C-alpha cells in the first residue's frame, strides 16, 4: 500500500501537519515566528554536516537545530531578540549553503533541501515523520498547562512553581524535531511556513487553546492534501504549492471572518 508515491506523499504531508499543529500554535502565541525561521535555516547546516560526514540526516539536523536554540538562549538579553535572530538565521542559511557546496556532487540536489521533495518520501521517512509528530504531541501534551501559563505570564508561572526556561526548552526540542521531519517535505525555507500559516488560519475559528490546535491540525492536513493534488495537476513544485494552499485557506478564513464581523449582529 505504501508503494504508491502519491499516497506516501499525502501521508507525509498529513504527518507534518500534525507535528506542526501544537507547536505552530505556540509559535504564534509566543511571537516566535522568526525563531522558527532561524531554526529551520540552521537545519541546512545540519544537512551539510550529514552529507559531509555521511551521518544520518534526521539526528544531524536535530543536533544543529538544538545548538542554534542554545546559542539564542545564551545570547538572550545582549541584543534585541529580533536583531539577533536575524543575524543567526541568515548566517546559518548562508553558511549552510556554502558548506553544502563543498560536498562533492550535492550542488544539484540543494533545492531538495531548500524546498523539500515530498514525492520521493520513503517508507522510512514516513516512519520518522510520524514518529516525530507523535513525539512532539506527547512532549507538548505532557507540559501543556505549564506551557500555556508560561506563555501568558512567565512571572505567574514561576509563582506557581513552573520554570519558564525549562518549558522554553520543551518547545526548542519540539521545534528541532519538527524541522528535521519537515525538511524532506517542504524544505528548510518553507518548514516554518507550515508552523505559522495553519495556526494563523485557525485562530478565528477557535475559542480555546485546545480547539485552536485541533483546527490547526485540520487546516494543515487539508493544505497538505490540497497542495499535493494541485501540484500533481498543475505540475508545480510540491512544497511551495502546499504552502500556497495553506495561504489560500488563511485568506479564505480571514476574509470570511471579516465579513461576518462586519455584519451587524
Amino acid at each position, binding site marked *: 500500500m505504501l508503494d504508491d508515491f502519491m499516497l506516501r506523499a499525502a501521508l507525509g504531508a498529513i504527518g507534518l501537519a500534525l507535528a506542526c499543529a501544537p507547536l505552530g500554535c505556540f509559535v*504564534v*502565541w509566543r511571537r516566535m515566528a522568526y525563531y522558527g525561521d532561524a531554526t529551520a535555516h540552521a537545519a541546512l547546516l545540519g544537512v551539510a554536516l550529514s552529507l559531509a560526514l555521511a551521518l544520518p540526516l534526521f539526528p544531524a539536523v536535530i543536533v544543529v537545530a538544538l545548538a542554534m536554540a542554545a546559542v539564542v538562549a545564551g545570547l538572550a*538579553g545582549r541584543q534585541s531578540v529580533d536583531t539577533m535572530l536575524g543575524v543567526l538565521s541568515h548566517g546559518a542559511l548562508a553558511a549552510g549553503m556554502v558548506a553544502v557546496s563543498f560536498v562533492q556532487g550535492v550542488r544539484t540536489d540543494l533545492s531538495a533541501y531548500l524546498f523539500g521533495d515530498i514525492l520521493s518520501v520513503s517508507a522510512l521517512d514516513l516512519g520518522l515523520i510520524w514518529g516525530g509528530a507523535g513525539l512532539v504531541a506527547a512532549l507538548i501534551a505532557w507540559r501543556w498547562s505549564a506551557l500555556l501559563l508560561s*506563555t*501568558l505570564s512567565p*512571572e505567574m508561572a*514561576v509563582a506557581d512553581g513552573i520554570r519558564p526556561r525549562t518549558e522554553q526548552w520543551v518547545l526548542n526540542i519540539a521545534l528541532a524535531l519538527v524541522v528535521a521531519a519537515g525538511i524532506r517535505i517542504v524544505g528548510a525555507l518553507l518548514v516554518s511556513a507550515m508552523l505559522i500559516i495553519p495556526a494563523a488560519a485557525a485562530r478565528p475559528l477557535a*475559542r480555546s487553546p485546545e480547539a*485552536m490546535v485541533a483546527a490547526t491540525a485540520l487546516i494543515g492536513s487539508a493544505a497538505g492534501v490540497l497542495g499535493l493534488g494541485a501540484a500533481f495537476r498543475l505540475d508545480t513544485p510540491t512544497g511551495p504549492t502546499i504552502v500556497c494552499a495553506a495561504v489560500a485557506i488563511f485568506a479564505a478564513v480571514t476574509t470570511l471572518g471579516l465579513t461576518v464581523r462586519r455584519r451587524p449582529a
Partner: protein
Amino acid sequence: MRRMPGCRVTGGGAPLVTLAGVSVALGGQSILSGIDLSIRRGEIVTVVGPNGSGKTTLMRTIIGAVAPTAGRITRAPGLRLSYVPQRLAIDPTMPMTLARFMNLPRRRDAAVVAAALERAGLAGLQARPLAALSGGQMQRALLARALLNDPDLLILDEGTAGLDQPGIASFYERIEQVNRDTGCAVLMVSHDLQVVMRASDHVICLNGHICCEGTPETVSLSPAYLGLFGGAGGALALYRHHHTHSHDDGQPCAGHTHEDAA
C-alpha cells in the same frame, strides 16, 4: 466574616520573605543594589519609585523569576505566593476563556471557580474570552485567579495600570478586604501615592536602592522621597494635609516644604 479556605492567620513569627543585601544586575547593568527587606504575615508593603527604579525587577526577584547576583533571599518553608501581573503577555492570538484561565495550571472544581468569579464581580462570565474583558474585569480576574492558591503572600505589580479612578479605588478596597479576611501579606508596586497613604503598613521608596522606608507618613515627609518624586511628592503632601489640617493662610507647615508652592 468570611475567610478564604486554607489561608492561615498565624500572625507574627518569622518573616515570609527576607532579602539580605540583594543586588541584581541584568545584562551587565546594575538594577538593584544592597536591598534589605522583609515581609511579615498579614502586612501590606508598598514599593514606590520612579520609572526605571527597579520596582518590577524587585518583584521578579522575590518571586524567583530573577536570580540575585549578590545577597540572599530567604523564603518561609512552604510559602505560597501568588503573582498578579500588570497585564498578560497575550493578545488576540491566544483564544482563552475566563474559566480556562482560572484552571491554569491546575484544574479546579467548577463550583470553586464560580464562587471566586462571583466574589470578583465576574459571575457567569466563565465562557467570556479574556480578550473581551474590560481593563477592570481583567484586573479582577487576575486577582481572583491569584487568590485561588490561598496565598500567604500576594504580589501585585502596578495592579491599577489602565484603570480609571473609581476602578482603582474599588481594586484597592478589594485588596484590603482580602488582606483583612485572609491575613495574607500583600506586596505591591504602585504609582498611586494616595493608595500608599491609605492602605499600607510599610512603604519602601526605591530607586535602584532603598532610599527610605517606614510608615506612609514617615516616607511622605522624608527628604529622599520628596527629592525623588518632586511635584508628585508635593501633591501627595498637599493631599495629606487636606485630610489632616487646613492651610487657611497658605503658609507652609513647619518641618517640611510644599514642592507645589515653590
